[in-house]
């Protein structure tokens, strides 16, 4: 394999990793703030895809408008899921919320099946994302560059939001101590709702770009990317947004490189991802950037 092929694969790994990173952030933010693994997150991503699909093909909106609307509506869906399903369980044992999350996941998949139908649909790829490029012998379709670019912009925005704004400060304080945050006069439920909104918006953005890369959508399309992104979040250290980014990019890269360099085991790419999860949990249960669990003083 030559250097050109390597670049080709790195570009592919980068775009796949971007998608994992975007989706992983939703898992890690929700976990960080209320210690819940939101198993419905992959399905939220699926809904985002369908919204963008219908925006373009049914309502004849320009793709930019349709994508933005899909992202906004998906963030509303995330907030509704929190208020309807998780908020009533905030003081309940964690296992109840976890089971509820699995329930919400099945609910969204089944609802998707009823409303959208089970037959896969072809997601329309806007022309700007579909240009064949030849950069020094590396053949790429333009979405391979668009995806990391859009992801980078979203991630910079997210970091700014969390570290430089008032609501971001409240998100960080809720993540360490919900009760004391409420003693600051902060409506904690609003902060958590906002977190769900952001996480779901990123999932929708990730989902739409997923559909650009793999342009067939169906109501179960969220399951695998959801699980992989969850692995990425745990790999990087769940609860840590930089961990989710790192984990996402690494997982995407590893997956692509394994397939590229060892085509004979390419069929095991999912098994490899889950294998990584097991190994990480064995040797570093808190993930790459996860801090050791500290007792609250």
């Amino acid at each position, binding site marked *: 394999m030559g250097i050109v092929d390597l670049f080709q694969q790195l570009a592919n790994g980068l775009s796949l990793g971007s998608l994992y990173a975007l989706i992983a952030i939703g898992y890690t933010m929700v976990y960080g703030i209320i210690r819940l693994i939101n198993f419905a997150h992959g399905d939220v991503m699926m809904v985002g895809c369908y919204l963008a699909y219908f925006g373009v093909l049914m309502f004849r909106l320009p793709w930019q408008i349709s994508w933005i609307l899909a992202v906004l509506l998906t963030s509303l869906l995330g907030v509704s899921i929190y208020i309807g399903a998780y908020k009533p369980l905030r003081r309940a044992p964690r296992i109840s919320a976890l089971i509820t999350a699995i329930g919400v996941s099945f609910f969204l998949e089944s609802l998707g099946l009823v409303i959208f139908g089970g037959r896969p649909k072809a997601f329309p790829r806007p022309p700007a994302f579909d240009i064949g490029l030849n950069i020094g012998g590396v053949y790429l379709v333009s979405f391979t560059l668009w995806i990391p670019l859009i992801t980078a912009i979203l991630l910079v925005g997210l970091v700014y939001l969390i570290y430089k704004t*008032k609501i971001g*400060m*409240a998100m*960080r*304080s809720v993540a*360490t*101590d919900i*009760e*004391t*945050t*409420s*003693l*600051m*006069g*902060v*409506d*904690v439920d609003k902060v958590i709702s906002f977190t769900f909104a952001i996480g779901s918006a990123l999932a929708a953005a990730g989902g739409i770009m997923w559909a650009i890369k793999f342009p067939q959508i169906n109501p179960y399309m969220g399951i695998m990317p959801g699980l992989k992104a969850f692995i990425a979040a745990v790999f990087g250290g769940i609860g840590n947004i930089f961990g989710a980014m790192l984990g996402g990019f690494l997982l995407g890269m590893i997956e692509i490189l394994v397939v590229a360099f060892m085509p004979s085991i390419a069929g095991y790419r999912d098994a490899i991802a889950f294998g990584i999860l097991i190994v990480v949990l064995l040797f570093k249960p808190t993930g790459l950037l996860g801090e050791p669990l500290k007792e609250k*003083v």
Partner: protein
Amino acid sequence: MLKVENLHVYYGGIHALKGISFEVPEGKIVTLIGANGAGKTTTLRAICGLVDAKGSIKLKGEELIGKPTHEIVQKGIAMVPEGRRVFPNLTVMENLLMGAYYRNDNSIEKDLEWIFNLFPRLQERKWQKAGTLSGGEQQMLALGRALMGRPQLLMMDEPSLGLAPLLVREVFKVIKKINEEGKTILLIEQNARAALKIAHYGYVLETGRIVMEGPGEELLNDDRVRRVYLGEA
């Protein structure tokens, strides 16, 4: 300012507060003293809406029972919780801004200056993560954070807990100073002597009931209080 009447709290099957009543007049320091498990912390948590309670808690005539914590805080009650509970991963500055979170007036800057005046150590460390502060500094930060909300009533749960004796004295000096600047304070302490010394009025709590009350000075000299709570023969 604060009027608590016939306050009951049940924890599971335990009747933690059995109908206590007390008052915190404007501009005064009132203290609740008592042994571990007497119900002091529960009382403060009930006032903040952190535990369900029955009875009546009125702030300037307005009933607080049944309101969510953030609304109660916004009405002007700030709490310095037991164990300080500063946000360790936020900077000192951010902790103070959290205290002013619900305010949207434009004198937050001025209040920051006031806090830094009160606690110069915090100014030196304003960009440091709060988790890296010493226990005494964290106590100052928790107090400063509570004051940033410009509360009408400041409640403090065991501010001297886990501090060296020298720091304890300092903390009580600051509490007294804040009171002299006009803040009403409800103070809870196991360190009964220090609390009664600065308090205008005190209540003695025993297994969920108020068993004695009186001006701080008077309780300090009461035989029973001296024997049971001040450890004197």
